[in-house]
């Protein structure tokens, strides 16, 4: 895998600081973090627990607000958006894959996949949706309820949903955290595939060096700050870097 030059940033965090609580109980989850998520890249964000990696993802993904600094997606400052505009942004320009509970239990796999279209009152782009479904290999499972699917299949449905609207960026929060290594590898393979064949931009939080090795670059967070970066990671290198955190 060759390092491609950064063509442009889909999402950018500028001097982002996120604090919780006040006075004595003040917790700094993120301190002056500046990151660019490059286009058509799979960027992994790593760090030990408490490093602020999940908080960072939530702030980038417009799920949470920042205390200082700003977050831009596609050139738009999230702070300037109303709740309505944020909703539309999440629906049309962002895709999500969470660690668990990604699907609505009452709806079939297919209905879950086209849900963002339904919420927006739009007709699904059938050709594209079909291609995504083919890519993640769900063809024969579309009419099943989530409870009738395995964990790996459920995550594939979630991934298909995230990709279905051709979002500018997909945020994945420990997408393999609940899966066995084989199913995990499948999901990571699909993510990688989405970047390579569709030019999809993906930002993924993980604590798994193997997962991180699928990325084009890895950003290491520690105590709310960026502590390192790594291009073209391989599992051993990432693991070694992670070990340094343990001290």
């Amino acid at each position: 895998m060759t390092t491609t030059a950064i063509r442009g940033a889909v999402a950018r965090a500028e001097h982002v600081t996120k604090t919780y609580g006040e006075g004595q109980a003040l917790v700094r989850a993120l301190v002056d973090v500046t990151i660019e998520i490059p286009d058509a890249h799979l960027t992994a964000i790593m760090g030990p627990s408490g490093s602020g990696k999940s908080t960072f993802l939530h702030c980038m993904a417009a799920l949470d607000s920042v205390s200082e600094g700003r977050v831009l997606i596609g050139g738009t400052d999230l702070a300037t958006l109303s709740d309505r505009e944020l909703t539309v942004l999440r629906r049309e320009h962002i895709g999500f894959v969470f660690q668990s509970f990604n699907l609505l239990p009452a709806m079939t796999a297919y209905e879950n996949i086209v849900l963002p279209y339904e919420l927006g009152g739009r007709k699904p782009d059938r050709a594209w949706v079909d291609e995504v479904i083919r890519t993640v290999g769900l063809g024969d499972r579309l009419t099943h309820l989530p409870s009738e699917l395995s964990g790996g299949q459920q995550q594939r449905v979630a991934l298909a949903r995230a990709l279905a609207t051709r979002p500018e960026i997909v945020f994945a929060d420990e997408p393999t955290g609940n899966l066995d290594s084989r199913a995990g590898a499948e999901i990571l393979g699909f993510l990688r595939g989405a970047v390579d064949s569709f030019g999809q931009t993906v930002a993924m939080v993980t604590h798994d060096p193997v997962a991180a090795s699928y990325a084009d670059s890895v950003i290491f967070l520690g105590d709310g700050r960026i502590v390192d970066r790594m291009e073209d990671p391989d599992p051993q290198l990432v693991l070694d870097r992670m070990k340094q955190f343990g001290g």
Partner: protein
Amino acid sequence: MLHMSLRSAWYRRRRLAGIAVAVALGVAFLAGTLVLGDTLQANFDNLFRQVSAGTSVVVRNSTGISTDRSIDKARGLVDEQLVATVSHVDGVAAAEGQIVGYGSLDGRNGKAIGGNGPPRQAGNWINDRSLNPYHLVEGRAPQAPDEVVINKSAADTGDLHVGDTTTLQTPQPVRVHITGIATFGGAGGVGTSTFAAFTLAGAQQNVTRQPGKVDSIVVRAEPGVSDTTLRDRIRAVLPHGVQAITGSQYTQERIDSVSSTFLDLLRTFLVAFAVIALLVAMISINNTFGITVAQRTRELALLRSIGASRRQIRSSVVTEAILVGTLGGVVGVVGGLGVAGLLKGMFDAFGFALPAGGLTVHTSAVVAAFGVGLLATLIAVQLPARRASGVTPMEALRSAGEQRQIGRGRRLTALALVASGLALGFVAATTATVALAAAAGLLLVVGALVAAPIAFRPVARAASALARPFGRLSLSMAGQNARRNPRRSASTAGALLVGVALVSLFTLLTASLRATLDNEVRSGLTADLVVSNPSFGGGRLSPDLADDALRIPGVRTAVALGGGPLELNGTRSIVSAVDTSRLTSVMSLTTVSGSMSSLGRDGIAVSKGEAQTRGWHPGSRVDLTFPGGASVPTTVRAVYDNAQLLQDTVVPQQLYDSHAVQPTADAVFVRTNTGTTTAVQRALEPIAQRNGATVQTAPQFADSAASGLETLLGIVYVMLGLAVLIALLGIANTLSLAVYERRRELGLLRAVGQTRRQARSVLRDESVIISLFGTVVGIALGMFAGWVLFTALSDGGVFSAPWAQLTVIAVIGGVAGVVASIGPARRAARVPVLEAIGTE
């Protein structure tokens, strides 16, 4: 989006079904009461139309005074000679004098036919077939003055046949021979009422006892002559004080009268309870939806994070409410027809006979009940829907089960509400302001609902603590479970709290009213025996009964108490008529001024309250107008302290009887010589029986005087029962949701050795804690409100707390908790161990 809401609702259909049932019950009750009201209205309309279907014009005395005994105004009589005058008017095909009065038929067994309630009438047989709504089916019309035709259902119930002889209490007992049996519009009679028809002369002799007079004249027009034309022609020949109206006017008058005196009251009464049931249902719906929203937080947050707007989330909850409300409404409206039948049966069972007939279902009643149910559901769901739309996308990432703490705002609000409610209550009680009492009650109910979650935690902790020394693990665990989400547990108890508070309030008010009545009757009565007809609809007594009683050895005094409606200076009033010279020997009356025994022929006495409101004092001139139109000038000669047994005005019997039509007595009070009471009672009994009355000792009479209240309380209990049922359903619903939520935990407990039985016990104990909490707080609230209301309403009444009844209510509350837990407990015990642990 709609499609999504529907799918989601269908997926959780079992959890939503409970809410729909609460809506259905409330709507069923409301629909039932509305349909019952319409049905009764239609039946009465139909009845009155039938009665005067063939009548073109009615001629009657123009002075009518409304009475509380009948839907028709009390009227004077008109001269029988007018019948001939009217007959000669051009266009009159037939005109007949009519008499309708009181007459109770004895059956073969010597007892009054029909028992309590239904009207018992006696009058004359109208010979013109069109003018007479009754038609002979057996025998012949009466010819001699002691012959009667009776209606078929009376004959059937009383086992009477043509040729039989029986007694008619008019209320003087009259021996009558039955010569015929008649039906009314194809039915055996008017509802369960009885009717006996003499000849006109017989009716004058036995019913009104005024020869040469009739109640009214009914006229049939010749073909081609309109009712209004005939009415105008007849008017021209009538003397002053006599009026003519068309048959349809007459019918409309009676329809309006039954609406305003009876149906409107009944409707208001029933709808009030339906509204209570719906309010309780709303508390329950609000709570249940709140729980389902809380349980779906992650789902809602997920929706938000993939692009659902707040409005979409909100409308998905509202859509669910519309679905549930619609379903509940449809089921409720259908069930309402059954409820209407049940209500009718209930009123029959309690002794208020209502006219029979099929149900009348107006679209308006259906739409109203359905609409109100849907609206109630929508209002109840507003808070949960707002909470749902406030779920942030971030909550999709948090672990479930985080709960909100009880805020300071709630504590302060609760404190302010309860404190101001209590303070207002004391002010209301001391200043006797009913409006303040109502406001205090409302503040306390709202305060209790707000404060309940705060109070619940220590209560549940106490239950746990209580369980430990007795080794009741289930109770201890139940206490912990209930405490886990005190807000939810408390609002679950809230619906029951409101229901029980109302039950306690009515129980307390009834007990206190009863104690007051009892006390006043006892202390106001110096008579030893009382002859009265204990029935509701008021079987009446002959005023001669007092004279008969006086002839019994050992009787010192016997005084008949009667009366009726009069106009006092133009204002309608019900007065008591009594022999005032002897009154003080059977009643202890405190006279504020003047003397009861020296009213003279033209003096009246008024109560202190009446004197105050009317500004009367001894010497005031008061004109009495009798139903016959006679006006008599009188003077107030005495003012007495308010007395339970007397109306607010007392008119000397002689004066009253000389102007009243068919004067009767309600009760005869007898004072005996020392030691002869038992003997007198025995001698009095057959005389009383001839009048269909019973003899009671003074304490017995005091008791039975208040027994009508118990009947009313019985009806109120049944009405409130539904609200309590809805509340219990709410508890069962919440527990089911809790079971669903605690599946993993229940599975884990079973995995480490909890038996199914123990799993059930924990849930049952939790249910009992919740329902007892609601019951006990409800009783406390109801008692305080009852005390405030009673103290504000009655001046100097006897407050009585019916501890035994309140204890029963508390026990029922606990038992109800056990019943409510049956379903959820069974489900909890059935949770499969492995699957439960495996569920995410």
